[in-house]
């Protein structure tokens, strides 16, 4: 069993065979940095719990394609802030399947939206000047559409 410590002090136990789905954790174990527990200062407790839910499910139901598909579909039905935390955690922990799943989910939200809609949905500030934006819009529309 491996012990993981989240950034906010929560501890989680997980089997090593499951935990190594995270390449980051796998390398730490191999490099013998996992004596008592592995600190994960970049992941908070709530998010780490979710990530563990994912890797546990993918370890136990490895061959059940249908089951995993529906699990994954349900798994990403979370609010935007949580989804982004999971993405950052999956990136830090280097869990390919989870990163692909969550990035695909965000991409699906972006598909077919206008620029303004994308900005709104992700609360992103537009730092182009009106002239810069107009020129870029033009160039892309004229050349690459």
């Amino acid at each position, binding site marked *: 069993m491996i012990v993981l410590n989240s950034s906010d002090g929560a501890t989680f136990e997980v089997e090593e065979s499951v935990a190594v789905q995270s390449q980051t954790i796998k390398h730490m174990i191999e490099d013998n940095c996992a004596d008592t527990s592995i600190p994960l200062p970049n992941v908070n407790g709530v998010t780490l719990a979710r990530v563990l839910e994912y890797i546990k499910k993918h370890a136990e139901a490895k061959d059940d394609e249908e089951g995993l598909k529906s699990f994954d579909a349900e798994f990403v039905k979370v609010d935007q802030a949580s989804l982004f935390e999971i993405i950052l955690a999956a990136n830090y922990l280097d869990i390919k399947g989870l990163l*692909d799943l969550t990035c695909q989910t965000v991409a699906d939200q972006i598909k077919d939206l206008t620029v303004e809609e994308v900005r709104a949905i992700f*609360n*992103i500030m537009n*730092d182009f000047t009106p002239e810069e934006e107009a020129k870029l819009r033009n160039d892309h529309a004229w*050349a690459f559409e």
Partner: protein
Amino acid sequence: MCVFQSTINYFPEEVLEHVFDFLSSHRDRNAVSLVCKSWCRVERFSREKVFVGNCYAVSPERLLSTFPRVRSLTLKGKPHFADFNLVPPDWGGYLHPWIDAMVKARANLEELRLKRMVLSDDTLDLLAHSFPSFKSLVLVSCEGFTTDGLAAIAANCRSLRELDLQENEVEDRRGQWLSCFPDSCTSLVSLNFACLKGEVNLAALERLVARCPNLRSLRLNHAVPLDALQRILAQAPHLVDLGTGSFVHDPDSETYHKLKNAIQNCTSIRSLSGFLEVASRCLPSIYPLCSSLTSLNLSYAPGIYSNELVNLIRHCKKLERLWILDTIGDKGLGVVASTCKELQELRVFPFDPHGVGYTAVTEEGLVAVSAGCPKLNSILYFCQQMTNAALITVAKNCPNFIRFRLCTLNPTVPDAVTQLPLDEGFGAIVQSCKGLKRLSVSGLLTDQVFLYIGMYAEQLEMLSIAFAGESDKGMLYVLNGCKKLKKLEIRDSPFGDVALLADMGKYETMRSLWMSSCEVTLEACKKLAMKIPRLNVEIINENEQMEASTDDKQKVEKMYLYRTLVGPRKDAPAFVWTL
């Protein structure tokens, strides 16, 4: 005041890039690159697939400086009416400058998809030698090359997965281009040479198929006989897409018997085409494939008669795409309607466009299909006659059309029953089909049809007009109404200067406008070119005296204008005058 900033603003660049990896459409990628400066930068440097809708709207150098990591390029050259021989040869659309620039920039080109471009054997040779990871070449309606160019590709592209030639004009050099695939080439997934006119080395072809275990799509030309097909299918039972060559043999022979067995082993075939030459008694051998087919293209198979077509189609219950000749007749389309409940796309081509006195398909066939196929969303229909009533019924039955192209064989034929123009019929189509993106109209049409189009076709992106309308008002309705219009092509219609000049800024929102045999004068074209400098206004005049003449009032035979970032092109031939 605290402004909430989403976590996405703090994503490391590689994570943002990873999200963008899942956005395949160029429209989505263009949208995300406008969101903010950091997204723009990440998107630019990670875009690998680039789409260029008009090769003269941007330069190769500009493409490479904008998207330095480009690996897959789609390029379109000549305007669509080139398919109807309205664009003279040597007009342009050359591939060479693009390959040249990519070589100089050491781009890692892997895929090239070209439509209506001109490329020489030298260009293909340069391509073949310059890009070690080159995987995929798709050429649609291109010209200028020979089988020697194909030989260079075959011989030198070590990682080639796809060589797909659709409807190209390829000079046959009687070389052995197929034999040029080295023995080490085992990576082919898709090979389509159906449009080639010459002989191929059958032994080389069979050996090639045998050593490419990933081959899933194979379309042969007419020079591949049935016995070779049998041997090929025996080696490639995992094919998903098959285009047969010649399908003629003695059905009592052992070869035919072996073919039947080979076909029965090909349980993955979902798409079928070819039958460039066919003996009808051999057709039953493909019946076992029919029940799984989702795509069937028999538009190059005039040898299959109507009743055989119908027998074949009766087995094809899962068909989503059907391309056939009008020899199928209205009755045959009735069978399609009752059998093919999954049908999404139908194209009915004229067997003999200049034939006299034989019945092609009429409005009845179209109505039947619209009633029987609830998923129909794309149609190209060459027909002998049409009625408003039929079009109104079709509109009611199929509100989901995305593409609707009707071509009456006589371009100005009125409603077959009432003798009225077909305005109301097309009006019903645009009113009902709210998602319509592409429309071709034909038959007797007044300005009224364009009033309807301008009023209702809100999503329309491409419109083709021939021999239609009565006055400038027609064209004005379209230009004023269709906000999403990208391509407008007009021939032999009475639209002139008033329509052309009413809203000159509109053309900067469109990819291109083609007008030939209309009423537009040289003076108006010059005015437009002067007022909107970022348009290339090309006058195509095979009578070279046009430039010298001072008569601006003369009508322009062919005009093609398009927005561009890079000014007048430098490769225009003498008969093209950019104003």
